[in-house]
């Protein structure tokens, strides 16, 4: 059976893409952020995942408001990035894993998640930047990918509890996937930030650090919040925390923290990365 080796939560601020393109990783502004990934790179060299499942949110590249799925699962053999309008370089395509995608899709629908299935899906910076941070190099594509998009744009948003359960169902699907693949799960975005309104620039360090702690040992405490309570505590765009909560839900085994870094600010955002190792659960458990 496939094995979930761990989970990573990471910020996906667009400006990071610009910094990578201009090789600014060692500049004083960027160094405290990029240095937070060295330990992740060391861990990835040992953990050697074959596939990554990425929980992220689209910012108006693939999905517009004409049709806005709450949860959308990619089911393609390749995912393209494209021009998002404000100048970060377009990334090379990413290999998909349509067999694993369809396995996850079948499992999710059997578990009563009414998802949207996407055989074509453009992936935006919320998908490309985390992969560039984990595996630096413009054309580096060492893993296959399964994108899972969560709506964090158009209210009403799914609840943290629902996102956690979605993650759990994805985790069980992977635990019961007949392959030898080593799977890493990523949740992208956040942490606290707000781009709009008179509260623009809002950052909440206390809340972010509490969330990073709870994500390790007590994620259920975060699922008691509503999405609007997260907006209140983490800012309108800080609600991207939902992607991290889904990632944590997918870690079905024994979880231990291997690394974290937290740095304010990157652009308007409290930037963060969290690495959780997962001692895989037993396969063939019932969905539900």
């Amino acid at each position, binding site marked *: 059976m496939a094995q979930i080796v761990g989970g990573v939560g990471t910020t996906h601020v667009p*400006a990071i893409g610009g910094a990578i393109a201009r090789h600014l990783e060692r500049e004083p502004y960027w160094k405290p952020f990029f240095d937070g990934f060295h330990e992740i790179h060391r861990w990835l060299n040992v953990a050697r995942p074959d596939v990554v499942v990425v929980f992220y949110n689209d*910012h*108006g*590249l693939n999905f*517009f*408001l*004409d049709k806005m799925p709450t949860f959308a699962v990619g089911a393609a053999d390749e995912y393209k990035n*494209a*021009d*998002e*309008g*404000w*100048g970060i370089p377009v990334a090379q395509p990413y290999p998909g894993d349509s067999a694993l995608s369809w396995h996850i899709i079948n499992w999710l629908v059997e578990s009563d998640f009414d998802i949207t299935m996407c055989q074509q899906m453009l992936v935006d910076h919320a998908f490309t930047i985390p992969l560039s941070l984990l595996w630096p190099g413009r054309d580096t594509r060492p893993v296959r990918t399964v994108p899972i998009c969560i709506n964090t*744009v*158009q*209210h*009403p948003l799914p609840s943290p509890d629902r996102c956690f359960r979605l993650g759990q169902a994805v985790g069980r699907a992977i635990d019961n996937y007949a392959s030898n693949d080593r799977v890493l799960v990523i949740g992208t975005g956040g942490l606290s930030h*707000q*781009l*709009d*309104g*008179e*509260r*623009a*620039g*809002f*950052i909440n*360090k206390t809340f972010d650090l509490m969330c990073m702690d709870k994500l390790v040992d007590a994620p259920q405490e975060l699922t008691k919040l509503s999405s*609007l309570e997260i*907006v*209140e505590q983490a*800012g*309108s*765009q800080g609600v991207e925390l939902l992607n991290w909560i889904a990632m944590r839900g997918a870690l079905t085994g024994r979880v231990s923290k291997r690394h974290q870094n937290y*740095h*304010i*600010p990157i*652009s*308007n955002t*409290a930037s963060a990365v969290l690495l959780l190792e997962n001692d895989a659960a037993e396969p063939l458990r019932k969905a539900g």
Partner: protein
Amino acid sequence: MKQTIPGTPIFDGDAARKGFALNQMCFSFNSEENRAAFLRDEDAYCRRYGLTDAQIAAVKKRSVRDMIDAGGNVYYLAKLAGIFGLNVQDIGAQQTGMSVEAFKERLQQAGR
């Protein structure tokens, strides 16, 4: 009853319905060709997308606050702001009535 969070626009159904034309225009700015067409004739481009008078006025004023009041969503508006050469610190400063330097300093302060 609607929940409100001070200083925080919630992009709900009411906002999405009100802002559809404006957001749809901004969504079109994923294409270089469309960004160029907007710059060639801003009024004609806004009319083509059926923007309301309030939305057209907000775009003319380059006022992100007014655009949000007219139903704009910041993720889409960021694509329009990009055409004007404004990044998220610029639009943050604009919305809070601060200078860009003061806005950036406040972000730095949040980390201390």
